[in-house]
């Protein structure tokens, strides 16, 4: 237990020591939020009669979580490059605990970022339908964070150098985000696109968050929970396995 805690704490401390990163991770979703709300908002309003901001906010909060969570997992590559990974790998602790601590640490950091974005959205005029569901919404945010940190850990265990980092971000994580229901609703999509988006486990995480904040669920809370839960479990096991293969 102590081991998981100290690894979790390390992730947090590292982050608090370098403040620039927080601003960088916070800036991206806010930029999306402003550009898309002002850019597409009027069209959306005209087409559906609904407020785009109300729709977009859960997606943008998710964005604020997804990227830092994935990055935190991929930090394994950094730790390997700078040698610190060896220190944890020759210690008399199980690799499973190390992975668990890392994922929880990364997820916590991502959750904090998501909260910041959330507060910003409230200031911008976003309204929560049911305040009683707020804890549920936070739980969904953390759930998405754990899922994404697990993806990051899987990638981080496979990558060998920092150079492939950016490539992964642009060609894997970005489409993962774009082909989800973060930025647009599913109901009027062409069938093919709709299938792709529905198969994306991230869509279920965002749907869960959106459901508890505003519009109600598209897939249904139970389905969301099942899909995201199963995928998170698989990724977590895969991450532990791949991490245990790393030779220091």
């Amino acid at each position, binding site marked *: 237990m*102590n*081991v998981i*805690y*100290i690894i979790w704490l*390390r992730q947090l*401390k*590292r982050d608090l*020591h*370098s403040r620039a990163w927080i601003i960088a991770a916070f800036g991206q979703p806010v930029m999306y939020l402003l550009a898309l709300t002002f850019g597409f908002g009027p069209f959306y309003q005209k087409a559906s009669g609904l407020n785009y901001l109300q729709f977009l906010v859960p997606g943008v909060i998710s964005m604020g979580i997804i990227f830092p969570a994935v990055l935190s997992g991929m930090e394994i590559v950094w*730790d390997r490059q*700078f*040698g*610190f990974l*060896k*220190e*944890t*790998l*020759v*210690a*008399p*602790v199980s690799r499973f605990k190390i992975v668990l601590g890392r994922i929880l640490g990364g997820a916590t950091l991502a959750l904090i970022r998501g909260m910041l974005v959330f507060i910003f959205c409230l200031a911008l005029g976003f309204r929560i339908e049911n305040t009683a569901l707020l804890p549920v919404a936070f739980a969904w945010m953390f759930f998405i964070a754990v899922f994404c940190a697990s993806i990051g850990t899987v990638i981080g265990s496979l990558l*060998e150098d920092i150079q492939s980092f950016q490539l992964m971000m642009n060609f894997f994580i970005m489409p993962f985000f774009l082909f989800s229901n973060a930025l647009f609703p599913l109901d009027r999509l062409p069938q093919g696109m709709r299938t792709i988006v529905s198969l994306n486990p991230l869509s279920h995480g965002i749907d869960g968050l959106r459901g508890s904040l505003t519009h109600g669920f598209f897939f249904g809370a139970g389905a969301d929970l099942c899909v995201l839960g199963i995928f998170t479990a698989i990724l977590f096991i895969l991450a532990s396995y791949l991490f245990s293969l790393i*030779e*220091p």
Partner: protein
Amino acid sequence: MIEVYELSKKFGDFCAVDRVSFSVPEGVIFGFLGPNGAGKTTTIRMLTTMLRPTGGRMLVDGHDPVKEQYQVRRSFGIVFQDPSLDEELTAFENMDFHGVLYGLPSWERRQNIEKLLCLVELEERQDELVKFFSTGMKRRLEVARALLHQPKILFLDEPTLGLDPQTRKRIWDYIKDLNQGQKLTVFFTTHYLDEVERAADQIAIIDQGRIIVNDTPSNIKNKTGSSSLEDAFILLTGKVIRDEDPSAMDRMRLRRKFRRKR
């Protein structure tokens, strides 16, 4: 304290360590020497549970590094060839992290960290981020960290590489003190043969994966009729520079990358 019998490690058809046998008694400072790529680091990696051997047997503090990883890991401290600190944490946080990983209770951590940071003269800098430390300070911190859980064996893989003579001397002073005071067994590699001459009780020279001598420094000098260990070393391992050959690690990395691309 360390027993190695016919230990081998092959990377594909390249034999990095070839049926090596030696033993290190408790409380001895053991120098493991050899040209670049001779198999020193590979041997350390096998002894410290990081790499599985392809043949032979070893015992570290009475345990098998392959089968009893946790017992072995608890018995040694290690200073790696490359830096291994978390630069974004302070000196104290690095130490504390290590202490928790090795299961020390918090009172013991606090006490040992204070003592060891004093020993390596970093107690006043303990709350500074490691990234602002000089190379020598980082090394001293790594030595302190390796000793935190009171290991019986200390592995040092080129611990003084790139350090100035003052720091080198200081580091060796700490290590020799601990060796004499607490009967700490020390297993180290280095290219500075003056250090070996001053510190080591026993030496093994490895070349191309095989041990060519295993004796005390003075015996080695006498046997080869050399006035210094450096002369003896050159005499035994030849004058050819080995850097052109990729080291065992490089070979492994290359091969791994290559395999993945296919």
